[in-house]
């Protein structure tokens, strides 16, 4: 870790990397195919981007920890009941048949990722990804207990003492508490959280609940406490394919090499121009604050999660030495090349690609909302009987049998009135009123009859009409379901 700070100062190549001829002098060395992990001690940072990250931490965690505790009527507002195959989301009761909504949500998630990545690179990684958010929370605990970067490094270098042991135990207790609470909350989305809380304290959680609480607790503890940037560097697939979505108009954390180089320490009063120095005072703070341990002055690197910590800390340094801010900033490759102003840069950010993403995103969101708004509080599946095609019954009538699955997505008992239409004299031979209890689904066998000569032999389209009404007899909505009526030869 320290090698970067203590190594003799030298100009590190900026991307694009220099050509073949200039690299001739580079020393070539043999290295192992595997790298030992170096622990990173990110320094705490204040600034506009750090503030935004904390805003996102607070919002995401309020939603995540808070949502399972909300009540909706007599039940948990958001509950994914996998056992009963019902998803409760506020006023909605979703059946497995509503899977299409999940598709829409995934499409929205994907296009949001495309959009934000095209605009400003790995925004998701830097501000909202659980890996970042929990690492941020865990690092905050670490800082409170062990102190900032230098104190932590000193502590880790010390021999074990009572004080060190105390600090370490203290930290891990806090970490484990947060991790347990996270695991508990996660399981609380799938099993009613209040009952789960009772079970937790009485010690009679089911073995699967115990497994998942501890599994997610362990994952949080391990990923946010120990793995941290390793997850982003070696495990996360999004990190890799987001880089493929960058182009030369994507805002990325950029070091203004032209302004900064040649870097070097100088007295505050000295004129950098006279010393032949750029704006970079080479304080190395940008490296110290980096959660992935890279030097942003080397240019865009695959490890960079776009968190903007280096931009924040560099701005404070620039303020201190009295230089203008923005030596490290969000900027685009084109803006750096063409020396665009902020306004010009932003104008180019909203390029056709971004506008297209926005248009698609809007379209899918509107489609989802419309579809949710028009959603009927029940569904019907019509399945022709698998055994008998058609039969002739008393009176010479032709009879077909159907199985109707009526799925009540309302949270009250509903009455359904069935009727059938499509052929002359077509009528139901079974009870046309069906009652289905709250959020339950029910199969009913339905016989449909037609006078002998009402239709030619063959297959005829028919339609079932199902009218839902509540217990007061108020008609709620009507569904039409198509099927076929078979007439034997």
């Amino acid at each position, binding site marked *: 870790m320290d090698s970067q700070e203590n190594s003799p100062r030298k100009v590190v190549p900026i991307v694009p990397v220099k050509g073949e001829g200039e690299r001739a002098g580079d020393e070539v060395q043999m290295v*192992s*195919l595997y790298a*030992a992990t170096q622990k990173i001690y990110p320094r705490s940072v204040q600034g506009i981007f750090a503030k935004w990250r904390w805003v996102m931490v607070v919002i995401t965690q309020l939603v995540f920890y808070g949502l399972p505790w909300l009540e909706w009527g007599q039940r948990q507002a958001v509950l994914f009941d996998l056992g009963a195959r019902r998803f409760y989301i506020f006023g909605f009761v979703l059946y497995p048949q509503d899977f299409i909504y999940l598709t829409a949500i995934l499409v929205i998630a994907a296009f949001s990722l495309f959009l934000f990545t095209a605009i400003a690179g790995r925004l998701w990684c830097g501000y909202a990804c659980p890996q970042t958010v929990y690492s941020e929370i865990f690092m905050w605990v670490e800082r409170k207990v062990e102190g900032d970067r230098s104190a932590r490094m000193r502590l880790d270098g010390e021999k074990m003492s009572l004080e060190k042991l105390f600090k370490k135990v203290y930290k891990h207790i806090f970490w484990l508490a947060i991790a347990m609470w996270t695991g508990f909350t996660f399981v609380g989305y799938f099993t009613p959280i209040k009952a789960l809380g009772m079970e937790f304290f009485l010690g009679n959680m089911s073995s699967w609940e115990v497994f998942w609480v501890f599994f997610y607790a362990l994952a949080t503890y391990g990923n946010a406490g120990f793995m941290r940037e390793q997850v982003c*560097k070696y495990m996360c697939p999004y990190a890799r394919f987001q880089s493929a979505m960058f182009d030369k108009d994507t805002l990325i954390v950029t070091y203004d090499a032209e302004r900064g180089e040649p870097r070097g320490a100088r007295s505050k009063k000295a004129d950098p121009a006279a010393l032949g120095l750029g704006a970079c005072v080479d304080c190395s703070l940008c490296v110290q604050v980096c959660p992935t341990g890279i030097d942003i002055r080397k240019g865009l690197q695959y490890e960079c999660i776009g968190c903007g910590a280096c931009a924040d800390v560099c701005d404070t340094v620039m303020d201190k030495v009295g230089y203008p801010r923005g030596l490290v900033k969000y900027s685009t490759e084109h803006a750096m090349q063409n020396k665009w102003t902020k306004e010009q840069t932003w104008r180019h950010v909203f390029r056709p690609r971004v506008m297209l993403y926005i248009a698609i995103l809007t379209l899918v969101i509107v489609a989802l909302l419309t579809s949710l708004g028009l959603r009927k509080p029940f569904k019907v599946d019509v399945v022709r009987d698998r055994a008998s095609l058609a039969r002739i019954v008393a009176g010479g009538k032709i009879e077909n049998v159907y199985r109707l699955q009526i799925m009540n997505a309302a949270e009250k008992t509903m009455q359904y009135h069935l009727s059938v239409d499509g052929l002359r004299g077509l009528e139901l031979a079974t009870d046309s009123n069906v009652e289905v209890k709250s959020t339950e689904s029910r199969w009913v066998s339905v*016989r449909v009859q037609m006078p002998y000569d009402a239709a030619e032999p063959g297959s005829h389209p028919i339609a079932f009409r199902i009218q839902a009404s509540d217990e007061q007899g108020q008609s709620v909505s009507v569904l039409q379901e198509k099927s076929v009526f078979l007439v034997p030869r």
Partner: protein
Amino acid sequence: MSDFISNFWHLYVAGITLVAIIACLILLWFSGKAKAMTANDNTTGHVWDGDLREMNNPLPRWWVGLFIITIIFALIYLAMYPGAGNNAGKFGWTSAGQYDAEVAKANAEVAPLYAKFAGMSAEEVSKDPQAMAIGDRLFMNNCAQCHGSDARGSKGFPNLADADWLHGGTLDKIKETLTQGRVGQMPPMAAAVGTPEDVRNVAHYVLSLSGSPHDSLRASLGKSKFGACAACHGMDGKGNQTMGAPNLTDDIWLHGWGENAIVNMINNGKVNQMPAQAGKLTEGQIHVLASYVWGLSNKPAASK
């Protein structure tokens, strides 16, 4: 693995599995020893197509640890579960064994339920909503394929929801039908009846028995020839449940209505079969299922 006659394939499979695992380990060991050339700008110095340079981004060491864990896991797995040729593994696991264990567990779970119903009469069982829900599932899985999901059958498959029974509709008779199956046999009777004209006349007589539309002249001519049928169906045509001979007077036509269908039946006869369920269903299941079927045609007046 018993499909293989030669012992060679067991060794082949076991060998290939173990060699592959060991090869992974060797590869890992060599890759740990190997060194890559790297320049200061973190490339390997390899250049393709003029400007495509290979970066040197080494894997983290903990990844090697994970790899070793998977190898250890694989070896333990091979020792515990079948995988290395015909080695059954320490746990003696088989898919059939797991299935049997799960079935036995499920049966043990529902046994008290069926035991509760076993002591109840058909009437009591058919009034129990839980038993009827079970009966409905059993019917859908085992009976609906022929008798239809509403149990009203179709041509050739008897309607179970009416009061007409070929072999008797008491609980015991239904159980007998379920357990042992039934074979309904109508021999070709054309020769016994007489000429083709006689056969048509008998057909009209049969139609007349249930008051179906018929030619009354032919029916009266056919009446004298019905004697050939009476041996099974009875002089009055009301059938015989001990033989499974259907009632011809109730306007229920299992194998088709009308002159042609009846003529065809007299000429060619019919063998119809209900398969025995004894091997598929337990006694407790048959009791619930028989009660369910009984309940279809013996509905209490209130629920109609």
